[in-house]
């Protein structure tokens, strides 16, 4: 377990999605992961980002 996941529920992510989340101020635990066992993958973060910008653009 990584140091960042000491809280109650564990978020499976990837180095890439952790970085993307950091840069864009996203909370990975709020993103549904499409990877095995719910791991948050790049596609999920990209989708979340696109969703966010789509909302902003409205």
């Amino acid at each position, binding site marked *: 377990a990584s140091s960042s996941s000491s809280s109650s529920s564990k978020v499976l992510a990837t*180095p*890439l*999605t952790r*970085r993307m989340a950091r840069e864009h101020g996203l909370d990975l635990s709020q993103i549904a992961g499409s990877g*095995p066992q719910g791991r948050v993958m*790049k596609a999920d973060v990209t989708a979340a980002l696109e969703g966010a910008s789509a909302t902003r653009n409205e």
Partner: protein
Amino acid sequence: MAETFDVVIIGSGPGGYVGAIRAAQLGLKTALIEKDKRLGGTCLHRGCIPTKSLLWSAALLHHIQEAADFGIEVPKPVVNWAKVQEHKQKVVTKGANGIDYLMKKNKITVIKGHGRIAGKGKVEVTGDDGSKQQLDTKNIIIATGSVPKSLPNVKVDHERVLNSDSILGIDRIPKSLIVIGAGAVGCEFASVFNHMGSQVSIVEYLPNILPIEDADISKEMEKQFKKRKIDLHTGAKVESVENTGSGVKLTMTVGSETRTIEAEIVLSAVGRAPVSEDIGLQHTSIKADRGFIKTDTMMRTTEPGVYAIGDVIPTAMLAHVASAEAVLAVEHIAGKNPAPINYDLTPSATYCYPEVASVGLTEKKAKERGYDVKTGIFPFSAVTKASISNEGIGLVKVVSDKKYDEVLGVHMVGPHATELLAEACVALRLEITTEELAHTMHAHPTLSEIVKEGAEATLGHPIHI
């Protein structure tokens, strides 16, 4: 009354037999049909395994020839080619026995004969003796694989002009050999026979050998082959191959130049053709496209209940791809919800010496995909473990995306590259960044440290160079 299978698989290569095992593990009533004498397909009998056995004998000979450098003095080794072949056969037979055992253990019904789809949920099997048997099944997986193809102007006679099937059984080490086609298969045989003492030439139509690899990798391998005195002709179009009685004469054009080279034999290694004829496709909606059967991401063909996997579909013709597709198909049949295969993560391996291995995007492909690409190169000459065996040859190249630092591809030429690749396969699958890869502790001293250094090189600060 005939029983009804959950799945009937036609073809027992690494696609078919692995799929059958997984199907049985998932509780499916499974039949596997094979027309060859033994199970295992191309991979076991005419592909991956016998070639690697020859390559091991060849690499061993090479290491023995250098053994004095390490204090092990041996009189000149002699190759007993018949024994080389015997060992190869032993490994293959052991593999086939292993598959037989696995079929029994998993209670898979194995039927020997030629399988054809005979209608909806029906497969007909014709035995060697002409006897026919009909199977009822809920699902069918076509796993009929592929066979060598040849150039229209290069007739394979299995005497002077061999293909990968026939050269595997060759009864001698040819004095000289011309290999047409420098893909994995061509390069592996070139490597074997060069080590065994043949004079080897390679003729490749494209500008570089191993054309699907990253250009820097192909170039490095060309350098290595040249050091080994392999005669390379790239960008070369074969015009004719002529049996001279005592050998073969090959004429090619390279740009405006015409070249003629001669050798004892020629190996035609120009690719493989899918096997989709005479398997009953006419009883389905499936239309093969230049022999290939198209599928969706769950390996379903256009015909409900009929799947296709492995070399017969237009994905990379590799054993592990066939196996992965087979597992996916049976998991789908079993009602699981498998994730589609990400083909960008397909490892590619060529077991020549030194080895070549890669996964992910080449620099060129990454640019085509629109990534802002960074690369890092690190040589094996700066890896201490490699210098211990005098194998400081080759390099690793890491391709990454500037924006998020994602590792997009890892490409290697070097000692044991095919084993070192596994790390990169996992790393890419888990979307690693170069920073994370560079920070991963690797055991010292190992060759695998090169992957870490390659990642550091991408970041601009490798340690040992």
